[in-house]
């Protein structure tokens, strides 16, 4: 037990929580934007995978990590756009369209990896680049706190900054209001002249862009290569984080950190000779438990409101 506490109070543990939360946070914000527009985007998983590979390939070709990031994000946006086309124009059920995108991503990335790198497992033959880490002057020297918050990948800072940006976008801009209106009640939004389809397209593209950042982080920050299925369900976990966070930016961030905590814990607990498989299960099990607790609380709230309404009506 004391070994367990040692792990958690170690500043390195705090650092790794932020590190592993980053891709989940990006994708959770992506899930948030599309959810606000009334679309469940389970293609986040596939988008992250495609963006991760895109980043590796283009940074290897051009020698520039930022160009790789740019292409990864563009691909993310394009896949979001195509999900919009399938679901909004072709009227494919959005969940099935996303399942299809995930399937294409899983096989397609291996296919492309084989064509580009000559290997079906890992991109180590490609000279891909990594996005820089940033040391924050002043902060880095504070003992205890500096090692946790300083020296992260530039995308980690961007992810946490995005929480604020997305909050501002959703609640303080006209487009954000339109997105929320469409998700809240599309007929009402339509009746006041908001184009439902156009708004959902925009939301899905932003959602794809955010997942694109998450994917780029996976292959150009979290690690420095692409390997098959490297996203490993983070896109799905992000959906759960968004639901657990009560569909708010800050809530999604806190839930992402919670999953990051369990993910980091699963990495650290391996040092204590607890079976790797058992520990790897933790973030997923925590997700289910978190989701259930959240929905129980929600149904309780609804029940209370209904009871109060009934009492008020009776009186």
């Amino acid at each position, binding site marked *: 037990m004391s070994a367990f506490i040692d792990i958690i109070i170690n500043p390195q543990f705090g650092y790794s929580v932020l590190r592993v939360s980053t891709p989940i946070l990006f994708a959770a914000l992506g899930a948030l934007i599309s959810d606000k527009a009334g679309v469940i985007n389970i293609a986040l998983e596939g988008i992250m995978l495609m963006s991760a590979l895109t980043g590796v390939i283009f940074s290897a070709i051009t020698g520039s990590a930022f160009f790789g990031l740019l292409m990864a994000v563009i691909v993310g946006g394009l896949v979001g756009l195509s999900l919009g086309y399938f679901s909004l124009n072709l009227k494919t059920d959005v*969940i*099935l369209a996303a399942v*299809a995108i995930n*399937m*294409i991503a899983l096989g397609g990335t291996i*296919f492309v990896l084989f*064509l580009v790198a000559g290997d079906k497992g890992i991109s180590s033959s490609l000279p891909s680049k990594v996005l820089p880490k940033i040391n924050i002057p002043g902060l880095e020297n504070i003992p205890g706190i500096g090692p946790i918050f300083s020296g992260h990948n530039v995308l980690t800072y961007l992810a946490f900054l995005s929480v604020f940006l997305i909050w501002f976008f959703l609640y303080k801009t006209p487009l954000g209001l339109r997105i929320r209106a469409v998700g809240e009640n599309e007929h009402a939004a339509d009746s006041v002249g908001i184009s439902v389809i156009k708004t959902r397209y925009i939301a899905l593209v932003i959602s794809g862009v955010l997942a694109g950042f998450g994917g780029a982080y996976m292959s150009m920050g979290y690690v420095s290569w692409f390997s098959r299925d490297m996203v490993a369900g983070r896109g799905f976990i992000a959906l759960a984080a968004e639901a657990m966070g009560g569909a708010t930016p800050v809530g999604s961030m806190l839930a992402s950190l919670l999953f990051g905590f369990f993910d980091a814990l699963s990495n650290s607990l391996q040092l204590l000779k607890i079976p790797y*498989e058992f520990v790897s*299960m933790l973030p997923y099990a925590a997700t289910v438990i978190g989701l259930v607790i959240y929905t129980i609380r*929600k149904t309780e709230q609804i029940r209370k409101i209904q009871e109060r309404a009934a009492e008020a009506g009776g009186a």
Partner: protein
Amino acid sequence: MTKSQRLFEIYRTGLVILIALLLSLVIILLVSDVPGEAMKLFLTGPLDSLRHFGNVLEMMVPLLFTGLAISVMFSASQFNLGAEGAFFFGAIGAAFIAVNWNLPPVIHPMVAILWGGIIGSVFCGIPGFLKIKWGSSELVSSLMFNYIAYFFGLYLINYFLRDVNAGAMVSYPFAESAKLIRIIPKTRVHFGLIIAALAVVFTAVFLHRTRWGYRIIVIGRNIRFAKYAGINTDRAILLSQVLGGFIAGAGGSIEVLGLYRRFTWQLLPGYGWTGIIVAILARNNPIYIPVAAFFLAYMRIGADIMSRSTDMPNEFVAIIQGLIIILIAASSFLAKQRHKMVVKEAML
């Protein structure tokens, strides 16, 4: 569904398959250095020997089970994607019984398959339960359960069943009495194919000829109508998820007992996802599941044969499969033709 509607759906499905095949040929043409050879192997490879055709039939078995499982779960309009985990974990349950128990032949595989099915039904049942009890999204929880099944399953295999002398991460060998017999000589086609055929008949009868099946289908079409009609929707939904999980878990058990001597999977096999395409192609109707499973199995084996002797990687099939899902599920694909047809019929 009227006869002309059914014909239209067949025409639509045929067209999608044609588009998918054409796209495969285009991809081959673009990527391969020996496109002629690659195309020939992809299209006719499965027919060039009994062994290859046997591979197609073998591949059909898991697709039949996961396709049926997903048809049953989707019929109630529940997006439970847990068939993947149920298939994997069911197989692990069966492996435990196949390794550890001593039972006479015939009884041994029956017990193992039943046990695998029960485990599968628990795995798909929990997301269904959480949905009807508290409204937790069955989609998200079933996705999580796939990973839980995967890691927990690996843990069980590596810590309780692992044969340390085998030189790889595999279980102890299965007892001879637990294995399913081969039914076609010179191939690996096993008795599971016959069980799968029975499962198709059973599921078809259940969904279309019993009261419970009817309830499930009514819920899937319109849950509010089902509630007004006095159907206990919670119970019927849970039944569909439990039954779907049972079929998937039994399918996983049959797959390992039919094809392998030990439990060897270190990755999720992916049949749960392919089962979604099977179910969509068959419009959740068990009678069409064998056709859809055959088509997908043929395509996969064709791609495997092609990738073995040419430079084409077989993963491009995933791209084709994705396209098939999108087009088949796209309700506005060919909607104009359907409209014309309906108008023409009305004029007669």
